[in-house]
């Protein structure tokens, strides 16, 4: 009896030891992929027994085959490359414009009165409503797509910069004033670093919208790109291609967001918040 208890308790202690020793990062990855893995298995099983009809919802293996096929014939790189190119330039242009205008509106009251109502009015227009105009002005080549993406990225970044700057603690700014900082020094040494957290939040949600708009732009008129693959999939009745494109977008979007998240953690390591303690 007592021997059995001993064995039992020893087992428990070994188990907990293993859990402690597992690197935190690995544990996070394992936990994060547990549910997707289960869903994949269920999906595969349901496709296998015929609950999902293959001409509507192909099995994961079929989707994977399609992806592998595109990798093998080399067509995938071209599509992914052009999509990344569009989102990169759209994102950079949108963020740059938002930084300049956001800093101006956040810092100078006059600029706020002058510009903010106008920008807010523009924000009320769904960005997709611009599409006809952009195509009219710039044709269906790259400029109109990049502009659309830039417009989509602009607003969340702008809003977060303005609220970040306006939310900077007056007490910290006074410290700079005591040392007779010029406006430029105040912005550079206190206001920008202090508003960095909300700026990064804005950038991440901006990138999310960027992915949305790059796909929208490519759906509407492109001869290449991940969004174009969706259209091809629809027109050729190949759901495997549609799902493969969706998976591709998910992977690319998640990867780019993880990169930004990593950058955020790097830049904000000084923050004292719950998220950092875990």
């Amino acid at each position, binding site marked *: 009896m007592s021997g059995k208890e001993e064995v039992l308790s020893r087992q428990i202690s070994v188990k907990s030891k293993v859990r402690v020793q597992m690197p935190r990062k690995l544990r996070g990855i394992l936990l994060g992929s547990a549910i997707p893995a289960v869903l994949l298995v269920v999906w595969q099983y349901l496709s296998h027994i015929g609950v999902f009809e293959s001409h509507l919802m192909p099995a994961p293996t079929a989707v994977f085959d399609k992806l592998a096929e595109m990798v093998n014939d080399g067509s995938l790189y071209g599509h992914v490359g052009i999509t990344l190119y569009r989102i990169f330039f759209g994102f950079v242009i949108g963020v740059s414009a938002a930084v300049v205008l956001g800093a101006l509106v956040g810092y100078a009251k006059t600029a706020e009165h002058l510009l903010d109502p106008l920008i807010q009015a523009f924000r009320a227009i769904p960005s997709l409503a611009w599409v006809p105009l952009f195509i009219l002005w710039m044709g269906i080549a790259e400029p109109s797509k990049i502009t659309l993406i830039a417009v989509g990225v602009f607003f969340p970044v702008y809003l977060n910069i303005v609220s970040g700057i306006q939310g900077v603690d007056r007490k910290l700014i006074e*410290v700079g004033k*005591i040392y007779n900082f010029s406006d430029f020094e105040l912005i550079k040494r206190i206001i920008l670093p202090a508003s960095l957290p909300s700026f990064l939040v804005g950038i991440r949600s901006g990138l999310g919208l960027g992915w949305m708009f790059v796909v929208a732009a490519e759906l509407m008129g492109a001869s290449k790109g991940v969004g174009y693959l969706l259209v091809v999939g629809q027109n050729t009745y190949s759901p495997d291609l549609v799902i493969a494109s969706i998976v591709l977008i998910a992977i690319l979007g998640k990867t780019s967001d993880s990169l930004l998240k990593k950058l955020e953690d790097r830049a904000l*390591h000084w923050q004292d918040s719950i998220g950092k303690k875990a």
Partner: protein
Amino acid sequence: MKMLALENISRTFANGSAGFKNVSLEAEKGEVIGVLGTSGCGKSTLLRVLSGLDQEYTGHVKVNGNAIKSVHKDIGIIFQEPRLMPWLTALENIAFGLKGAAKKQKQAEEFTNLVGLAGFEGHYPKDLSGGMAQRVSIARSLITKPEILLLDEPFSALDAFTKMQLQDLLLSIWKQYQTTMVLVTHDIDEALYLCDRIIILRGQPGEVYKELTVQQPRPRSRGDAELARQKEEILSFLNLNKTSQEDHYEKSNTPAK
């Protein structure tokens, strides 16, 4: 020439019912002046005016005989809260007010040692205790070598022991640099322990009600009988209110913000 001279300074808000008025004051080099008063009598406003952060006042502030109207490099201030930049390390915070990179590092290290923070240079404010953070803030204000140091209830948020340690630190700094100090506080013991002269502000808006000198030579004992007697005296000054004694008593008991 007086190090610091205030000539008939007034700064009021809310239709004249808050702030202070007609304050005149002179300080010699190296003098430590305490400003005592119940909350709402304009003590902190007085320091904001002196520091140049608040320029909406009437009257003149003179440093070494020159009238000033904005922030001045010879005047440093220590706030009630440390007000550290959370994204800078202790050392970088200390060097915050230094212009030009030359000797910055060395000077910052020197002042880190001065306030007893050697070994904590690389810590971020989130990892510092309240007392350590206030030490950083003291070093930050001293590093620009101000001739006049303004202190706005600098130790009021600290526990009793840390408070005593930092008061002694302040005295040792005063000994070394002979800085003129204006200390705003609502802690009578603190004022008696640190100051040469104590100004009592009263009323709303606050006016100079009484001025008394503390003769005891430093270092003073915290339990000194003469200081205890003066404390009684100050308490009686603060409680004697011609208009409404009870109202004033209540105010003196509300913790100052």
